[in-house]
């Protein structure tokens, strides 16, 4: 069995599919070059990403699949899990080898795995839409730092741009070191210096606008008074708002 080594990009993955159909080497496993541990007897083949070949494969997929499935492939890729590349590769090969509609075969492990991973990514994206809490800075920009489990920032832009059109905002991924900035007209990708990044998480009072503390306080009050103590159910609460997200939430910060 051959091992295909690629550079970890979506382009590389699609090129590997192209390569496989050109050579038909039989069963193949796909590994990320950076994470690969070679053993003595395996045959390796390095895949050199090619924009053209990747574009051809992607076009073929778009003709075969519904929009929802194209999005699922993208989402699964954004999960950044090491094993998902292999599943995506096998799934795409499987789709091209079978008549259209093969993506409905949930009995196939790759179909199911990609569908389930995509679902996890969509869930994380939805949680970000829910748990992002903007803080209003003195310079008029609403900002928020996040560190999501998966690389969901590319999926978030549209939602927030549609929603907040009359205010400037920044959402910054502290784990992957890039962010989105909306300046009332266009949405662009930004990167910050490390010192600026650390300011995002622990904001000092002089950076914030004067009303910011009042509204944070009002929100905490609201959160407290809307609770019904007679129905307390901590298990359910933690299930819906897992503890790893508490650091974003204004209502979960202790009062100083």
């Amino acid at each position, binding site marked *: 069995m051959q091992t295909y080594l690629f550079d970890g990009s979506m382009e590389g993955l699609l090129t590997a599919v192209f390569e496989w159909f050109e050579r038909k080497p039989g069963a193949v496993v796909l590994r990320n070059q950076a994470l690969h541990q070679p053993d003595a007897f395996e045959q390796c083949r390095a895949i050199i990403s090619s924009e053209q070949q990747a574009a051809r494969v992607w076009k073929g997929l778009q003709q075969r699949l519904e929009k929802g499935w194209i999005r699922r492939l993208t989402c699964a890729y954004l999960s950044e899990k090491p094993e998902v590349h292999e599943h995506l590769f096998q799934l795409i090969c499987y789709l091209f080898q079978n008549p259209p509609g093969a993506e409905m075969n949930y009995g196939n492990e790759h179909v199911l795995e990609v569908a389930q991973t995509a679902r996890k990514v969509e869930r994380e994206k939805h949680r970000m839409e829910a748990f992002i809490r903007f803080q209003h800075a003195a310079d008029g920009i609403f900002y928020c730092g996040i560190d999501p489990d998966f690389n969901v920032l590319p999926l978030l832009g549209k939602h927030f741009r549609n929603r907040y059109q009359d205010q400037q905002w920044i959402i910054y991924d502290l784990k992957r070191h890039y962010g989105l900035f909306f300046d009332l007209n266009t949405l662009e990708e930004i990167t910050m210096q490390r010192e600026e990044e650390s300011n995002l998480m622990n904001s000092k009072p002089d950076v914030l606008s004067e009303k910011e503390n009042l509204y944070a306080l009002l929100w905490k009050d609201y959160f407290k008074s809307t609770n019904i103590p007679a*129905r307390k159910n901590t298990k359910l609460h933690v299930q819906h708002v897992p503890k790893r997200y508490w650091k974003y939430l204004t*209502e979960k910060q202790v009062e100083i």
Partner: protein
Amino acid sequence: MSERIREKLNILADAAKYDVSCSSSGGTRKNDNKGLGNSHASGICHTYTEDGRCVSLLKILLTNHCIFDCAYCVSRKSNDIQRAAFTVEEVVELTMNFYRRNFIEGLFLSSGIFKNADFTMERLLRVVKKLRLEERFNGYIHLKTIPGASEDLIREAGMYADRMSINLEMPTESGLKLLAPDKSHQEVIDPLGMVQRQIVQFKEEKKLIKSVPKFVPAGQSTQMVIGATPETDKDIMQTADTFYKNFSLKRVYYSGYIPISNDNRLPMLGSQPPLIRENRLYQTDWLMRFYGFNVNELLNDANPHLDIDIDPKLSWALRNMHYFPIDINVANYKMILRVPGIGVNSAKKIVQARKFGKLRIDQLKKIGVAYNRARHFIKCADSPYQLKDYQSTQIKSFILAESQSKYLKHDTNQLILF
């Protein structure tokens, strides 16, 4: 200034918390005027309270002054509590600033009745108009219809709100008369019907003329208090079913009564709210809306109450063992949906996946079927051959033995020994 508004928010949010509805789904408003807010089709829960209920809207009363004296309500006239009232500007300011920080999806505005119905409704209308027209707010607005308000006011409010609701309060007319002598179900039915007819009419016009404005795009809902009066589950669900059918409601909410007064018509202070019962009612509601069950199959004269220890779907299946076991690889979708342990998503996946080959146990488990529960009711490609048929009571005890219900630990029911 800020102290006063904090105090008001505490009082008026506290009084509004007994309204269960917090959904923000079904809104279709788009941000096409460069304003603030864009609705999300499925809604977003921005946080959850410590009792596990979602917080997606800023849920407040405009005021908790009220001319009515309903025994089940905290804001009743005779109750000795702090009273407060927001101004229109304060509500608008709070909503806008909370929304800008991504705390909420929108506003849920209700009110106690001060002076009369029209005066109250007119105030509510001013808030939504200011939000929509002056502040260009496109977030979600859930507005209470005030029973007895004039048709014109309600119709105008419907042009700006996404959802409107009126609470039925008690599942039966007699229950309502007992606790709130001034109110009747007819008062609720009239405006519900009025808004419903308008929704249909606007939809018809929209088919012909594209520029027809939106009218209550997310539909209507209602709420009933459970456990304050001695209704059976059958009464409750049949009332809900009638309302779903007659007024095409989006939701009926069931709220377990939380003791708030010493009134001897009501459960006494300190008694546990009926949380399990509430949960079972919601399960029944879901079975009616998404699983194709008829209310009479689940609750009838022979079974007027839902089982506390098992869910309504399982209890239906155990009463109707003659339909089972079904073969997953040939049975139709509707029947697969009725198997305990298989939900809507799994059922759809099964129907799609079986076109590619017979499904096996391990595949079913991966698809998401709760196999330990479902195995008593299904057959698939590699089901083990079973020599003997089990009785429904035996199956029930098998399932109960391996399930760990969070409710069984604090089951408050009296045991019947003899």
